């Protein structure tokens, strides 16, 4: 399984008829077992890029080559659950083939075991995010997209959820693409970091972290972050 991204441009026309360029040149490949991180300022076009990669938007220049039969799991920025279905129904609807054992294990990791029969309207944002994560993992994806899964959660909760995501990502050999604007999350979860420019987005710098994710200790993480923060991204 491999994802080849070769986008040369993406623009849209505003209601006033003005042309807006959202993406410039974005070229990279992602292999199975690898976690790519898209790192860039807010509003640089990350979500647009994700939509293209997820096959939700076909209106762009260039091409994206996906392996045939690739299963996509996606965690949107907002949880996007069906409010009229329970937590379990939401997950099973996307993943009808999931067996009870797998689902129970998944709910255990994400601390959702007590919430099977709750409706999304009864959940906090943190819990709803986890249901969205459970849904994406339940389909046993070949390609996982995580769009800012830790945004607007408090530090303790974000930290716990980050560890849970790390556990789940490590449990399966798939391509993962994470979008974040938090350097700490990027360094802890990613293998390759793609630094994006402000709009129209292009890749400024690619940082490959050699040490496997599980073996990175606090000092190494601190060192990588220190080096990265010295990058002069503004002049690339």
């Amino acid at each position, binding site marked *: 399984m491999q994802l080849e991204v070769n986008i040369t441009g993406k623009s849209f026309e505003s209601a006033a008829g003005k042309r807006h360029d959202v993406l410039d040149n974005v070229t990279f490949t992602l292999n199975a077992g690898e976690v790519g991180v898209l790192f860039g300022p807010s509003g640089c076009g990350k979500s647009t890029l994700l*939509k293209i990669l*997820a*096959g*939700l938007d076909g209106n762009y220049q260039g091409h994206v080559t996906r392996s045939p039969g690739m*299963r*996509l*799991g*996606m965690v*949107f920025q*907002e949880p*996007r659950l*069906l*409010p*009229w*279905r329970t937590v379990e129904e939401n997950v099973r*609807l*996307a993943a009808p083939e999931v067996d009870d054992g797998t689902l129970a294990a998944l709910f255990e990791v994400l601390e959702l075991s007590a919430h099977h029969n709750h*409706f999304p*309207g*009864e959940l906090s944002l943190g819990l709803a995010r986890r249901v969205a994560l459970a*849904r994406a993992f339940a*389909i046993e994806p070949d390609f996982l997209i995580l769009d800012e899964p830790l945004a607007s959660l408090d530090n303790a909760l974000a930290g716990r959820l980050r560890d849970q995501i790390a556990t789940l990502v490590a449990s399966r050999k798939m391509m993962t693409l994470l979008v974040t604007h938090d350097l700490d999350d990027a360094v802890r979860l990613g293998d390759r970091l793609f630094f994006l420019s402000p709009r129209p987005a292009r890749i400024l710098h690619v940082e490959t972290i050699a040490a496997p994710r599980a073996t990175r200790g606090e000092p190494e993480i601190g060192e990588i972050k220190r080096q990265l923060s010295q990058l002069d991204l503004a002049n690339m």
Partner: protein
Amino acid sequence: MLRLLSFALFIATWWIASLVIGDAKLPAPPAVLSVLIAEARSGALFVNLGATLARVALAFTLAMAIGSAIGYLMGRVSLANRLGDPWLILLLNLPALVVIVLAYIWAGLTEVAAIAAIAINKLPTAVVTLREGARALDPALDEMATAFALPRGRAFRHVILPQLAPYIAAAARSGLSLVWKIVLVAEYLGRPNGVGFEIGVAFQLFDIPLLLAYSLSFAGVVLVIETVMVQPFETRLTRWRLRAA
């Protein structure tokens, strides 16, 4: 309990009014009741109520099914909306009487003409309501369904239909009351049975107890159907909202 009280108040008012106005114009409740019982004994009451109910059920189902489909299409596809909109405005503002008379002229005094005419009267309101519902569909959930490759049928049932449910309920509610009103006119003008026909006969003979007997039993049937069928259906649809609140 409160309903019973309100019903008793209605009977009392009626009785007093009939004493004031006089039996010729407004017969007292017992006179109407005896006519009602006589009609029920002969079976005529049930034949006529049954005929009217069958027409209501057929026309309502037809108009809801076709109207919902057209409304959904017009809300989702802008070409369909542009093509259909002038017709919709025309139908919305066409008086019921015109539709019924034309239907009887073109299709004869037949059952098909009556049901079609009633359905055509109800159709545009269902279209308008469902078009609004289709326009209000959440594109974020559509994207979710596409990203997770939900098959069309499953996406429609679990993602689209629950979003349309309140609009379908609203269309059913307003449509049903419209059909109740129009069905009697259609029967009055061109059917040999049904509540509307009997009211027409009673009007020509100036038989006010008969007129009231049919009107009230019809109103009773409407009330029962509204409380037993429509209201529980609405409650069921919004179950997830009640729990969330």
